[in-house]
């Protein structure tokens, strides 16, 4: 069950869906590199919860020859390959499966370098791409020893060795001993980026330092772009992506990068219509991407507009709507309040309980970390260890490699000296044992279009996200609260 209990979302939603000219439901749903289409000012895509809208502020854009859309490397990929409009500018596991079927596995998405579990595997076989097809995961190859934001080698305060290597990409020609660590992560959405780049405060309280400066501009960097914080700006992210995912050693030139930054800065994506509740910007609600495009980023919800208060208008029933629609809207509004107000004890989570000084444990709610108005990411750099990638909190994931980290100096504040992890996360950038398992919070918009969730795709659906938090922090959500939160997340 991923949607409001007792309702039939798609059937009940026909009334609302009829008012939306959903595009790209057929062969044109997938944007292939070099398509040469015009990117319109507004694109609507159906999903299981309703309709996602992608806005391009400033009007339509010709994609022919545009570096975001043009294959530039030997594998035929472009940025658009893994950042699909229908998937809120990420790529869902479902879309990957459809693409596999439609192209018999020949789409550049399945490039051996990172669209397969490991380049050494037979590339024609589905099993060699199971992480992408079943879990939406792309291989991320990180250098070892770790490298910092400027690409300089970092002397790590931990050793890392491989406990389990199901695909061979952390042994043989790969692995820490060969300077290449393979981890597997979901592509992050390239939308609503002004929120991820916003600098709300000059300090990173989790690191106890002012924000690091971008060597190019000299300005502080938000620290919210990448799962492991390895790139602090869009330019740095582009260089990383071009050299890895696109297998192109030559970087884009300055003009190309400017074009990509321009496009990425204009794209906003959010659920526009719910199949049951109707337009997310109707009935007093302020959902949808239009509000995102118009709002000021980087605002702390606790001192400004409360997080997800966009849906307060749905607390009041609309007599013109069906009982089901009003019930759904009320559920979303309750979910927003639960998100903000239901407190629980957060314990043993680095980035929250250490070293920042909040204490271990500390009582707070979801908005403790998901605190930015309109977006739900962290105003401060959001490197936090929820345990999704690290034992004992991470669920069993036999399909992923498992690493053993041994801290050489101080032990990790919560895990001790020896840590077992599927993905050391931020520690692969900082080289610090205390950062093992920290993954940057991401935005919460367009969720309905881009399952599965968490950096390693361990939550198959939105209910899986709530269930993880319930297991991790023993929150004590009622069944109603869980459903309300799922409904809330489905309309973001």
């Amino acid at each position: 069950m991923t949607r409001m209990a007792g309702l039939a979302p798609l059937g009940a939603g026909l009334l609302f869906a009829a008012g939306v000219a959903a595009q790209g439901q057929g062969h044109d749903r997938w944007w292939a590199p070099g398509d040469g289409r015009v990117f319109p000012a507004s694109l609507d895509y159906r999903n299981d919860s309703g309709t996602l809208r992608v806005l391009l502020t400033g009007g339509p854009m010709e994609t022919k020859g545009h570096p975001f859309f043009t294959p530039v490397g030997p594998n035929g990929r472009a940025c658009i390959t893994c950042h699909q409009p229908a998937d809120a500018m990420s790529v869902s596991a479902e879309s990957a499966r459809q693409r596999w079927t439609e192209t018999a596995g020949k789409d550049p998405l399945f490039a051996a370098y990172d669209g397969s579990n490991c380049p050494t595997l037979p590339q024609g076989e589905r099993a060699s791409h199971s992480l992408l097809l079943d879990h939406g995961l792309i291989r991320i190859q990180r250098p070892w020893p770790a490298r910092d934001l400027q690409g300089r080698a970092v002397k790590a305060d931990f050793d890392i060795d491989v406990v389990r290597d199901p695909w061979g990409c952390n042994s043989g020609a790969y692995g820490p001993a060969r300077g290449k660590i393979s981890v597997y992560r979901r592509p992050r959405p390239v939308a609503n980026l002004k929120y991820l780049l916003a600098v709300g405060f000059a300090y990173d309280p989790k690191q106890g330092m002012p924000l690091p400066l971008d060597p190019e501009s000299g300005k502080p960097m938000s620290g919210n772009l990448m799962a492991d914080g390895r790139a602090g700006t869009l330019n740095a992210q582009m260089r990383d992506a071009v050299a890895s995912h696109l297998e192109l050693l030559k970087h884009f030139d300055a003009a190309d990068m400017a074009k990509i930054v321009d496009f990425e800065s204009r794209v906003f994506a959010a659920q526009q219509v719910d199949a049951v509740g109707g337009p997310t910007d109707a009935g007093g609600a302020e959902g949808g991407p239009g509000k995102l495009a118009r709002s000021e980023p980087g605002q702390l919800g606790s001192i400004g507009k409360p997080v997800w208060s966009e849906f307060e208008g749905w607390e009041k029933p609309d007599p013109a709507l069906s009982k089901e629609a009003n019930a759904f809207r009320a559920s979303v509004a309750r979910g927003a309040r639960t998100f903000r107000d239901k407190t629980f004890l957060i314990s043993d989570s680095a980035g929250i309980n250490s070293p920042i000084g909040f204490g271990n444990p500390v009582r707070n709610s979801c908005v403790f970390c998901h605190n930015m108005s309109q977006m739900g990411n962290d105003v401060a750099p959001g490197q936090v260890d929820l345990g999704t990638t690290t034992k004992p909190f991470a669920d069993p994931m036999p399909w992923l490699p498992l690493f053993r980290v041994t801290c050489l100096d101080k032990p990790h504040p919560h895990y001790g000296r020896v840590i077992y992890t599927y993905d050391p996360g931020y520690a692969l950038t900082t080289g610090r044992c205390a950062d093992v398992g920290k993954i940057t919070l991401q935005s919460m918009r367009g969720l309905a279009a881009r399952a599965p969730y968490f950096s390693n795709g361990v939550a198959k659906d939105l209910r899986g996200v709530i269930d993880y938090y319930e297991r991790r922090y023993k929150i004590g959500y009622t069944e109603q609260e869980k459903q309300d939160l799922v409904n809330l997340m489905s309309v973001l």
Partner: protein
Amino acid sequence: MIRAALLLALLGGQSAPEQLRFITCPVYRDTDAGRKSGCWLAEDRATGIRYDVTLAPSKPDWNHEVLVEGVLSASTAQPCGGPVLDAVRTSVLPGTCTRQMLPAEGFPGRKFVLPKRNIQPLSVKRTPPAGPFASRTFHLLFDFDQSFLIYQYDDYFLDEAVAWIRAAKPRAILVTGHAATAPTFVSGRRIVERPVIARERAEKIAEALVRLGIDRSIVTVRWKAGEVAEMPEADGLAEPSRRRVDIAVSF
């Protein structure tokens, strides 16, 4: 107590409350009075008194020992179920503890209020400090054997210092890290900071100044053993004043 007496002398001979200092395992009381409402309790094993240390800028970790340094509050209210230390610091130590959590047991705890030492978001326009400017020294204080800038405490003082420096445009800044390298005895245990922590503190603050826009070429970095000093940032506590960085600004 010697240190406390020294501070007393520094303060001009006025009678000062006793400065408590002990090591123990902290206890968390979940009063469930909203966000950040929990209570932290710490028992001085020498006396059997369990104090409320919740008001420390950085809170304990229930898995680790904690060094408590504080002064008993003049107030007799006990919202968490223990006498309150209201000038208090708690430093997390490496020693491990069995975690212990108490229910509210009728104690209300404290509703969260924003600490007085917090920085405003960048979106809030600030008024630069007014001159005239003369040489002065800013202080940042640290937890025991730590170089981490404490949230809503050190960042506040650093922010004040940088705002002043930006307005004053000084000729030189000397950043001096101090560490409490002279051992003291607490709860029957000899404790001492690592000498290297003085350097770590100094270098970290120098880097912080640069990240906040201060010209690196005017910043000099030094480190030394820490001595008790009088400063408002220490809230009258003697020992924490040894664990500090001085940012001395000259023209």
